[in-house]
């Protein structure tokens, strides 16, 4: 298998493996899938649990993949990926990649058990969590990765409760705590960084995990053309970060000289527009605490 690093658009094949899907215009998740598959190439087995990507791409007879692909049971992405790889191993199938694309709920909530089991087994699979911070496919309900203050249809913002009140689960940390060989965070706002990480995952001989922030114009409430820019700003304002976990070390890939305005990032999105100064202050404190730990404990 050709395992050269893909780090920019020029390296990418012109061939599309994920095409004609019915995702919303400007869908961040579909960009995450499209780019990953272009890096991994045609010899792949793809498993996708219930999420927007499976719901919009497997509608018999319109199948928007030109590679092997299946819908996995919602809680079972990790297990299905393991099974595919074990089957391929047993049957002597070579030179392929097994990749899963689960959403934030499919990863951090209902799928966390199967993901944990898969990492524990260490089969050679690539697990991509495309994180759009809520259950979008079912109509924007709160997931374990919905950030504080976010208005969803199950965390309505009102006089008493400012939307979601939990903290976004630290999936990257949870995955790293398994002692995984390679894990990374990414954002579709920094596509070259994401391509590089998918390339590295492809070279991994055991389970790897990529957590890519994938803004959702429908669920977050911003104009469709701003998808990539919002993904970039999430990193620039410090509410998301680009990092890797490799050989037991956390490595920060991008250290903003100074953070862009959290308030501006939030105000661009309908889901945060109700937030007052107090809540924004709380979010800022949360960011600063996280970054204090990053700067102290990670390689920068």
């Amino acid at each position, binding site marked *: 298998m050709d395992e050269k690093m893909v780090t920019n658009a020029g390296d990418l094949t012109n061939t599309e493996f994920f095409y004609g899907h019915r995702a919303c215009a400007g869908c961040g998740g579909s960009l995450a899938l499209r780019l990953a598959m272009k890096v991994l190439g*045609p*010899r792949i*087995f793809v*498993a996708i649990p219930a999420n927007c990507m*499976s*719901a919009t791409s*497997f*509608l*018999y007879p319109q*199948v928007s*993949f*030109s*590679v*092997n*692909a*299946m*819908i*996995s*049971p919602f*809680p*079972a992405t*990790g*297990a*299905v*990926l*393991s*099974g*595919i*790889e*074990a*089957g*391929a*191993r*047993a*049957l002597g*199938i070579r030179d*392929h990649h097994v990749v899963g694309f689960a959403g934030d709920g499919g990863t951090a909530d209902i799928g966390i*058990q*199967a993901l*944990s*089991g898969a990492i*524990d*087994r260490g089969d050679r699979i690539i697990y991509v969590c495309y994180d759009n911070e809520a259950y979008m496919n079912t109509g924007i309900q709160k997931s374990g990765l919905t950030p504080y203050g976010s208005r969803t249809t199950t965390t309505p913002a009102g006089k008493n409760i400012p939307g979601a009140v939990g903290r976004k689960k630290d999936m990257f940390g949870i995955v790293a705590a398994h002692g995984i060989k390679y894990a990374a965070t990414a954002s579709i706002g920094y596509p070259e960084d994401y391509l590089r990480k998918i390339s590295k995952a492809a070279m991994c001989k055991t389970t790897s995990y990529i957590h890519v922030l994938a803004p959702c114009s429908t669920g977050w409430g911003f104009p469709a053309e701003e998808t990539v820019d919002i993904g970039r700003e999430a990193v620039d304002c410090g509410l998301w970060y680009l990092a890797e976990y490799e050989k037991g070390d956390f490595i920060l890939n991008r250290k903003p000289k100074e953070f862009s305005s959290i308030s501006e990032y939030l105000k661009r999105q309908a889901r945060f527009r109700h937030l007052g100064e107090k809540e924004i202050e709380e979010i800022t404190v949360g960011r600063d605490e996280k970054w204090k730990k990053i700067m102290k404990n990670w390689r920068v």
Partner: protein
Amino acid sequence: MGMPGRKVFISGDEAVAEAVRLARPNVISAYPITPQTVTVERISEFVEDGSLKAEYLHVESEHSAMSAALGAAAVGARTFTATSSQGLLYMAETLPYVSGARFPIVMMNANRTLATPWALLSDHRDSLSQLDSGWIQVYCENAQEAMDMIIQAYRIAEDPRVMTPFMVNLDGFILTHTYEMVDLPAQENVDRFLPPYRTANRMDLDDPKTVCYAALDDYMEFHLKQELDMRKVPGVIEEVELEFKGIFGRSYGGLVEKYCCEDAEAVLMTLGSVTGTARAVVDAMRMEGKMVGLAKIRFMRPFPAAEIAGIAGNTKAMGILDRDLSVGYEGIVFTNARSAVCEIESPPRMINFIGGLGGRNISKEDMRQIFDQLMQAARGEQGERVRFVNARCE
């Protein structure tokens, strides 16, 4: 007949493990649950010692056990998993998933009751709750039948006309943990009977495919296709059983095994290991000149409606012994059987005996009382439709 088998003294769980080794699956994924554990322990040993060349996946739940088998089947692997009771229900979501995707996964289910109250022993509440999952279901009477049915299960499930998953049920502890003399077939005979699995229903790097996709406007047709193919299963079972008999010298009577039914005035229908007790009681009562008969329902899906109606048309009273209870109605086997029988012109009097729940023993004395009640019904005595066997109640 090919090479003779070898007599071994093993438990039902071990018989299943031996059968799995003989069937040469590519991938086994399983999560331990009593009383299935001995099977997966033995299989793990076979993988360790190299006598079974397969990938063994240690999964974190029954849901993942079936999902991993699904993934492996999706690239064309022959797979095996085993579970029981709560485990079967925990994987319930994946059962129609697998059957709808037409993957011939074979699973052993060690029948065990459902909580709560918690209990370890056997009844059929677990597997009968999954009758509608689109799986073939067989119930075994002893370790030999369990072994033979695992081997046959792959042949039937993988038949291109069938392509349907197969659940082999055996009673927890009563079969899984008791030792019997079992004829262990020679590997070369099994290889002759069961060639390697080849299928077009798989993802393929040279000719990419989707499996487990969505169908909105066509959902009904896909589901009906499953039904039409399931209707071919009785014929395939018959063929496979005939061939099996030719090679291994054993057969089990197809969907329903009849015992002394031809001239019986009262027939009892059973599932699984309790059939042995019933057979002994039929023998004893026949010696006394009592015209009783027995029918062992082997397959619950596809359901042997015609066979059951045939037996019913030839007797005056028919009992169904259910080791389950659909709370709010009656036994599940009874509901199914009565639906088959109501088609015939003059149906026999039908009684549902519910017993053995949570592993409660059904003794020969209990069995004799069941047959006595059936003989009374055959003579025209009226009574309750649903009767509880050996229960502390009025």
